[in-house]
């Protein structure tokens, strides 16, 4: 690992990018539907573009990169305008300081790994790029691969090289188009930790396209849900998932994400306590270290409500809170209840009859019982 006085030369966004964010107003005519997106993304962290295949996720990325000649609208990254229809301005791709990681391995086959990594470096003007390459090589653990041909790399290794190559140019924004899609499902664990590390250590905004719920849960700080070329929901990932007016199901069922930190471990019962803004929950001990930041995924169907503090129950996790609102669920017999717990929000799926019998309504103080919690990381 790096020495204590080591200064990271990995790209970090200039302040105006962090403050102003990424303003995207994009229109693109397509065969099935027209893409029409008007959205401002945060200038830090990982924005995940989520949606079914063919919803226009990749088109958004390609428009930002200037790879779609028919794209019109306006693109502003921090204080730099890359495209503005009204001013007849459209920078070609090679003049946009961005990094792009394509879905399939896109390494140049006629160059070795080192040649690939240096390709962008030679064309950039950033004097810090060379040192940033050294940091990117270390960050992605590809130091031993430099003299290999791309043909001699595994799928995961190829994508790590492609990511390092994009990072080394010190881009103002990093665009990742389903970087794990072409990798064997069992091998994804080989690269997901590197992406998490990037989210935490690389200080430039990243836009990550995926249709994998797992990647949303593990990587997203900001979530944009696309459907047929339109933005259906957008916001900080926990807010979007906990919204009940436009419920967004990421994965097999409605769930919320809680950001937390490992507080203590109970070795005798193989449990660990994770604190989050609003309380703490016991989870199965996965061998993590105390203080580590983790994410919890709680399915709405695993949360139930009582009006009194539960005792004599097998469910170990219960938290006090208040009912924020009660909305219809897909099934007429059921309702989604939005529960406030400190600064966090949980969702509970319960029957309409239970709500009537308990007599809860918006504002009621209740206890929530959490039957199962998934540790995402």
């Amino acid at each position, binding site marked *: 690992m790096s020495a204590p006085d080591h200064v990271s030369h990995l790209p970090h966004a200039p302040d105006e990018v962090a403050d102003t964010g990424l303003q995207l107003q994009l229109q693109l005519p397509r065969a099935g539907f027209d893409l029409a997106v008007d959205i401002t993304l945060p200038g830090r962290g990982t924005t995940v573009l989520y949606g079914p295949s063919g919803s226009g996720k990749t088109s958004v990325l390609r428009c930002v990169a200037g790879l779609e000649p028919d794209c019109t609208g306006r693109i502003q990254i921090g204080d730099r305008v890359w495209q503005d229809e009204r001013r007849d301005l459209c920078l070609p791709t090679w003049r946009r300081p961005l990094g792009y990681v394509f879905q399939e391995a896109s390494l140049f086959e*006629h160059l070795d790994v080192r040649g690939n990594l240096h390709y962008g470096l030679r064309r950039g003007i950033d004097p810090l790029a060379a040192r940033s390459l050294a940091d990117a090589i270390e960050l992605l653990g590809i130091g031993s691969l430099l003299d290999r041909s791309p043909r001699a790399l595994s799928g995961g290794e190829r994508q790590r090289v492609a990511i390092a190559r994009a990072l080394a140019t010190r881009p103002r924004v990093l665009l990742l188009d389903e970087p794990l899609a072409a990798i064997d499902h069992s091998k994804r664990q080989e690269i997901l930790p590197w992406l998490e590390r990037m989210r935490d250590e690389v200080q430039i905004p990243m836009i990550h396209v995926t249709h994998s719920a797992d990647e949303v849960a593990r990587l997203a700080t900001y979530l944009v849900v696309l459907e047929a070329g339109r933005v259906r929901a957008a916001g900080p990932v926990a807010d979007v998932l906990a919204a009940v007016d436009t419920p967004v199901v990421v994965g097999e069922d409605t769930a919320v994400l809680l950001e937390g930190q490992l507080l203590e471990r109970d070795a005798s019962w193989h449990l660990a306590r994770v604190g989050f803004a609003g309380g703490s929950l016991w989870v199965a001990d996965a061998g993590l270290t105390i203080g580590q930041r983790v994410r919890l995924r709680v399915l709405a169907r695993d949360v139930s409500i009582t009006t009194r503090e539960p005792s004599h129950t097998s469910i170990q996790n219960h938290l006090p809170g208040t009912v924020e609102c009660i909305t219809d669920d897909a099934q007429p017999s059921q309702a989604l209840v939005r529960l406030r717990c400190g600064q966090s929000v949980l969702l509970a799926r319960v029957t309409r009859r239970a709500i009537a019998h308990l007599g809860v309504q918006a504002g009621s103080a209740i206890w929530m019982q959490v039957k199962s919690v998934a540790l995402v990381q």
Partner: protein
Amino acid sequence: MGVRRRPPLAVIVSGEAGALQAIWLTLQLASLTTACLLLIATPLAWWLARSRSPLRAPVGAVVTLPIVLPPSVLGFYLLIALGPQGPVGQFTQAMGWGVLSFTFTGLLIGSIFYSLPFAVQPLQHAFEAIGDRPLEVAATLGARPIDAFFSVALPLARPGVVTAAILSFAHTVGEFGVVLMIGGNIPGRTRTVSTEIYGHVEAMEYAQAHWLAAGMLVFSFLVLLALARLRNRSVWLAP
């Protein structure tokens, strides 16, 4: 059997300086044609592989024409164009270069037209096989289009470049009709191996014709063999 024959090798070495002259001229013509074709065909093939212009199909058809046209047709029109009354002829005379028909330069121009499809098609296929992706990657890494062409497209299309060069060279060596029409079979200036063979046969000099014809046969076979091995083992061409 009683008939005294001169040793065939001596035919070429001694008496027939014409044969050596024809071989030398053929090699010069084929090398120059190949060099010119690579310069002309590469941008043309690039445009054909990537353009979305409506002119793409007609231009592609014109480039392919020499494959289906009898060489005499191509030669005839080139002769007219390059001749004293033709538009190119008028221009070259006005520039003080004289008339190009029945000269080596005229022959070179004819050969370039005649072998154009054999250079363009392998290059076009190679460029098409690369697809958009490597060029998009190059652009996202800051390479301007001309830079991406030389640093990515051309190296990736290397097997196509090699095939185009071999085919252009071999096809020029093997041309006959165009050479006869434009060149006029002038020894030392426009007489190539193929027209030399024709001359020998006309003059009933079968021994000399045999040596040159067999040489062409072996040469052509070797070229095709080399191409086949190239295709099977494109690893050769990898860096």
